[in-house]
């Protein structure tokens, strides 16, 4: 039992020396963060919460007053009285409607924005993988396709996400002329994890930008992995007369999996970086927008809040990278270390 645990720990490459040092350095960073970042942010958020609470109380008072006025209207006898009461009821109803709406248009909290950012990034990442891996397979298998696509890849790879974003906005806007009833938005809202945060065209534009910028590492690494399959393995396939599908799924893809996962790991890192930049410019709610809002806010805690975001982004990027390393280790077959 203990051996199994020890071998599992070994498999995942955990070494208690490293873990202790990492925990200690993490605690130091958290202490610094707490003093300079978290406390001011929490006080700001508490202020906001009290403001909202006050707003809700006001709404309740308005509702009570409206009920009283309606009762009075029924009891009123003269016409001018009725007119005055009717007007006040109408304005009170309007105010109430506004207050109700403003309940939902409260600015998002940081954890909600982190969740939204992560979902946006994963949408883009999954999109990128669906395009890059088959295309990479094709490139690796056929030198003709590879030489045909290489100039296109080299052309589009260096384009910055900040340049892609406005273009994608226009394109996505063209496909979704009416956000309130669009087949594409309905499809995305139908996906369980995405539906509960509400997909809008800005979200899609950010996701597509992430996809466009992060698909290149996966594409190149997949092509390389497939093209570099050992000639000996292909000789075995020839001698055994394996069919095309068997060759692809039982020899070529398993042989290329370590490189494919290396590409996916790089893509994930790139995607996360691109997403924050894209959100800064787009109006999709997320960590990037939080930074932009704080910048425009100009309050005394703005700088601290922006730095909190820096560390949050870094911590999430670290966590994502470590998760990908675990996956990479699972598919590598020669036990070579992929990273510290």
């Amino acid at each position, binding site marked *: 039992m203990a051996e199994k645990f020890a071998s599992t720990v070994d498999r995942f490459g955990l070494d208690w020396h490293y873990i202790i040092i990492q925990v200690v350095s993490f605690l130091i960073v958290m202490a610094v963060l707490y003093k300079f970042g978290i406390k001011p942010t929490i006080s700001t958020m508490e202020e906001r919460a009290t403001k909202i609470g006050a707003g809700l109380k006001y709404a309740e008072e308005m509702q009570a007053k409206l009920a009283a006025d309606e009762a009075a209207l029924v009891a009123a006898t003269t016409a001018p009285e009725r007119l005055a009461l009717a007007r006040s009821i109408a304005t009170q109803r309007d105010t109430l409607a506004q207050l109700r709406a403003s309940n939902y248009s409260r600015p998002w909290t940081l954890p909600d924005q982190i969740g939204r950012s992560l979902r946006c990034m994963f949408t883009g990442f999954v999109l990128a993988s669906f395009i890059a891996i088959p295309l990479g397979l094709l490139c690796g298998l056929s030198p003709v396709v590879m030489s045909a696509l290489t100039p296109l890849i080299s052309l589009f790879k260096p384009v910055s996400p900040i340049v892609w974003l406005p273009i994608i906005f226009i394109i996505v806007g063209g496909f979704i002329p009416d956000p309130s009833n669009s087949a594409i938005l309905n499809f995305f809202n139908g996906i369980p994890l995405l539906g509960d945060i509400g997909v809008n065209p800005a979200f899609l534009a950010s996701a597509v930008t992430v996809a466009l910028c992060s698909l290149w590492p996966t594409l190149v690494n997949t092509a390389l992995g497939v093209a570099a399959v*050992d000639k*000996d*393995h292909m*000789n*075995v396939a*020839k*001698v*055994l*007369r*394996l069919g095309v599908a*068997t060759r692809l799924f*039982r*020899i070529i893809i*398993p*042989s290329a*999996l370590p490189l494919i996962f290396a590409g996916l790991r790089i893509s994930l890192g790139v995607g996360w970086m691109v997403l924050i930049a894209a959100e800064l410019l787009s109006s999709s709610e997320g960590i990037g927008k939080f930074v932009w809002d704080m910048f425009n806010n100009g309050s005394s805690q703005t700088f601290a809040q922006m730095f909190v975001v820096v560390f949050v982004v870094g911590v999430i990027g670290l966590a994502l990278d470590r998760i990908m390393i675990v996956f990479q280790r699972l598919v590598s*077959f*020669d*036990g070579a270390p992929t990273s510290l």
Partner: protein
Amino acid sequence: MAYLELKNVSLGHGPEGHRTEVLRDVNLAVEENEFVAIIGFSGSGKSTLINLMAGLALPDSGEVTIHGKRVTGPGPDKGIVFQNYSLLPWLTVFGNIELAVARVFPEMSKTDRREHVMHYIKMVGLGHAVDRRPAALSGGMRQRVSLARTLSIKPDVLLLDEPLSALDALTRANLQDEILRIWEQDKKTVVLITNDVDEAVLLADRIIPLTVGPAATLADSIAVDIPRPRNRTELNHLPAFRELKTHTTQLLLSFKKDQLSSAKAIPPAPAIVPADFTLGRPVPGKRRAPAEAAA
């Protein structure tokens, strides 16, 4: 009609006009269930010869026939054991052999297939390492798995492409005995490519030397008439063994000498003295004296 025949087979590579001939007019006739060893120097075209026999390469001229039928491509009837083992590193020992068996005997049921694979794993002595990946095996064990894989598909001809070259001497001796034992139990037509004369004399019925490339060809075969079953320790006492060894080694070395003597003589270098480009007068500016610069 021999079981495996090569008739005037030639193979070269390179574009027209600059063609390097690797093999020229190779003739070989291997009878059924005969063990033939082909010996040659490195780079003389041994692997090319085996690839021709296996169908992984096609000859420029001449033909390769097995049982009268021309060889047009690779297949499981020509089992080849590669020099570099060619094991799939993401599959276990069992998985590697099962892949081959499942492809060649698709009608076998799962239990039959498992028995078949385990039979061959035990035959090469790897019963304790069934679920290990190749990365966890030594060189000798990997070559055993490769051998087991080739034997399990029951080929008509067994082609061994320098199977023991990449191993140390002790493992080599071990595996030579294994191959001998396996062949004695279940005789097949075997062509062994090797560069070790001892190995060839121990294992084979006939030794055929390959001359040195380019344009290598097979010399006359030397019969090994040492009685079977052969025992490594007794072999050293037989005078026939020593004679064969000496004769074969001298023959091979003579090929090398022929090649060296037939190489064109190097023309004498012309007597040129390099021109003197130094100026006669001193050049202005900072310059170290030549003696200092050399230090």
